[in-house]
């Protein structure tokens, strides 16, 4: 199918209209969005983590995830750098020989529950929601399985159930949202024996983190990871070694993902939902235009035909009239002629009579 210039311009116009219809992202504008007031979070203190994997175990239990091949008491699994997957919402990795550290260090990895989640901004069916308690949750009922969220997440957290052919889901830490609603602690936080995970309102956690850094300047790097990274995350981390030595990205910047992509991504749901309508519209318009053209042409032809016909008719009538006239004239002529003949004959008759009648004089 070839696309005519007109049609292409039509699509372009439609797309342009589409962008203006897009709803602006939450962070749009120049105000600083610092999350929902009183939203919750967790402060992970690397200096306190002993690498016991109790949090992994608790997470597995409260989220009813399948049991791993090796038990959670097996600490040797940390020799390998692991990441979250469809059966694991959280992992603890060990970092040996981090510069400046006295011994091995451990880092817990899970969804950081961004204040403005990249996954949610990338999802065009709104399967992700940032709840007012801070949790970023996922609704499998609307998910179409596009996995844009996996690409969007700067922390590489969402995982996909590739092994499920018909009901695959995106799997990630829920911040134990169902437990939070019930007033319970997240599974990992509850079990942590050394409060390496401190639970509380995010604004309080920032205070705690600053207090610890202030009171133990030699123990901590003067930075709270997650305070501003990607526009801020509900989960925060403080550490005694640079975060890059714990495999944490330091190149994320302080801008939330939706802020970066709002121009394009805010259009995505609209384009995705409106696209068929728009294209149908464009098609309908061009179809209608063709139809009108056809109709107009037909009308014009009809008119022309009518005109020609009427003209012909008029001509015919005229010709007929003329013929009639001619006929009449001819008849008249003939009549006249006949009459003249008759008159002449009569005159001849009368002359003859007159010639005969002078003997008879009127009395």
């Amino acid at each position, binding site marked *: 199918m070839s696309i005519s210039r007109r049609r292409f311009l039509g699509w372009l116009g439609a797309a342009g209209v589409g962008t203006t219809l897009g709803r602006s992202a939450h962070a749009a504008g120049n105000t600083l969005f610092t999350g929902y007031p009183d939203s919750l979070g967790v402060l992970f203190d690397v200096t306190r983590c002993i690498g016991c994997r109790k949090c992994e175990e608790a997470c597995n239990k409260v989220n009813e995830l399948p049991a791993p091949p090796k038990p959670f008491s097996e600490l040797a699994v940390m020799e390998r750098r692991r990441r979250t997957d469809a059966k694991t919402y959280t992992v603890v990795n060990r970092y040996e020989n981090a510069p400046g550290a*006295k011994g091995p260090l451990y880092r817990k990895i899970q969804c950081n529950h961004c204040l403005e989640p990249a996954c949610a901004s990338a999802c065009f069916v709104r399967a992700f929601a940032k709840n007012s308690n801070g949790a970023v949750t996922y609704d499998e009922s609307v998910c179409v399985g596009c996995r844009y969220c996996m690409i969007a997440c700067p922390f590489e957290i969402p995982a996909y159930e590739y092994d499920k052919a018909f009901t695959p889901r995106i799997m990630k830490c829920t911040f134990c949202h169902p437990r939070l609603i019930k007033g319970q602690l997240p599974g990992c936080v509850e079990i942590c024996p050394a409060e390496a995970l401190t639970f509380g309102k995010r604004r309080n956690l920032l205070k705690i983190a600053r207090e610890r850094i202030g*009171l133990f300047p*030699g123990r901590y790097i003067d930075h709270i990871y997650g305070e501003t990274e990607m526009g801020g995350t509900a989960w925060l981390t403080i550490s005694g070694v640079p975060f890059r030595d714990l495999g944490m990205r330091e190149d994320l910047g302080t801008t939330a993902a939706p802020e970066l992509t709002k121009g394009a991504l805010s259009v995505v749901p609209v384009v995705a939902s409106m696209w068929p309508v728009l294209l149908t519209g464009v098609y309908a318009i061009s179809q209608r235009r063709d139809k009108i053209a056809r109709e107009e042409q037909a009308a014009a032809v009809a008119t022309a035909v009518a005109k020609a016909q009427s003209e012909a008719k008029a001509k015919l009538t005229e010709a007929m009239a003329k013929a009639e006239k001619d006929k009449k004239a001819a008849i008249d002529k003939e009549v006249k002629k006949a009459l003249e003949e008759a008159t002449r004959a009569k005159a001849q008759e009368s002359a003859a009579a007159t010639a005969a009648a002078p003997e008879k004089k009127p009395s």
Partner: protein
Amino acid sequence: MMKERSLFRRTGLVLTLASLMLALAIMSVQGSAPSAPPADDASKPRADIIRIDGLKQFGKLERPAVVYLHEKHTQALSKKNKDCATCHLPDKKYMSTKFKRLTDTSKKTVMDIYHDNCTVCHRQTVDAGEKAGPVVCTGCHQERAVASSWTEIGMDKSLHYRHLKAQETKCEVCHHRFDPAAKKLIYVKGKEDNCRFCHLQETVDNVISMRLASHGQCIDCHRKRLAQNQDAGPATCGGCHDAALQKKIQKLKDVPRLVRGQPDVTVVQAIRSDGQKVAPFTRMSVVPFNHIGHETYNDTCRACHHSSMDACGKCHTLQGSKDGKFVKLQTAMHRVSAQASCLGCHDSFQTDKRCAGCHASMPRKDPPGLSGCVSCHMPKPAAATPETEPKVMAAMLLDARQPVTATYADEDIPETVEIKALSKQFESAKLPHRKIVQTLVKNIKDSKLAGAFHREPGTVCQGCHHNSPVAKKPPACASCHGQPFDGRNLFRPGLQAAYHLQCMECHKDMGIEKPVATNCTGCHKEKL
């Protein structure tokens, strides 16, 4: 316009071609020049790297500064029985450290001195069929990265004493001071200062820099003694400045005290900005200072006397003075982040394994809490009168303050403590309480510093029983620690974490490897 542009373009093209050809020519010349030093030689860290960039004082350098390896040249010269005088001219007192000149007169002169002398010597050496340095510009003028092993050197007590002995206690051989009246250097017995007090990083007016002063005086003396086959220090760069060679310098174990009229004990004297001494006990309790003791703890006088041998209070007056850079006496003594302050130095000992168990988990506050004041600031002794000499007063106070780590009698220390407040998955933990206290005390028994600060029997207990008044029977942990994440007590861990953090962090900081923190059953028995 168009014409102009094409002209520019043509000129640019010509210039580019010309510079390319020049570069090629230079490279070919360089290729024929004597080859670079062997790889093993170049990779070894050196202490003799000199950047010849003296022309900087006349403006921006036109070419990269020459990276000059001094010892390579001295070795080459010594093979030909040539000495320092080959390159260095004699100055008024010592040999000049400059190359073939005494002063830098002008850019042209200095440049010519280097270009003429260096290349001439190199060329002659090459002509004689020997290996020599470069003779073309880029041979010397190039950016070279040579690993450095250069380390600063100073006189420690041992080295000082060895010099003293070698010079038969003639301090005047090295020490001098400037007499402004006579306008010359004189020696005053008992007024010897550290070289660095006058000889600063850079030459200021008539006072030459520390670098020039030490290279003039030290090397001159060493060379003279070496020439006379006497025992002498090094006269090469690496001899003093190479990190590895520095460690080989002989160190005496017991160094006799260096005497300069300093007190054995004294009190820290507060002086007002107008020079008036503050009479003891008018405001603060007095701090007695064991000077002779601190001499043994430190390697140099400079550790405390950072810019003068005077008493601290002379420059660091109560209100601060220009001489003391407006650092007040209070700050000079208490700033934890300053190494020369009392607290700064004392604090640095807390990283020791024996101390870190308790101290690493104590917050660093600057200034620290007030509870420790009385460790140094002592009340007036009964026998003291307003006429008592500072030295006598200090002796009285120090006698009253024996640095001994104290603790409660064994029977007052519970032998075991069973932690059963929390027992869900595990049985209660039995803490060998008395053993822990005894070990902590034993560890620091020999430390006078620790003794000075742990004189009260309850002080060691505070390592764990913190944030409550010192008492023989301190409150239970659960009095304060309860449920975790209490919004009203943001900074207070819950009971379980309080126990675990206390034990685990102490073990980690003290280097106690067993039981490992992840071995639950090392402390608790699993509930069946």
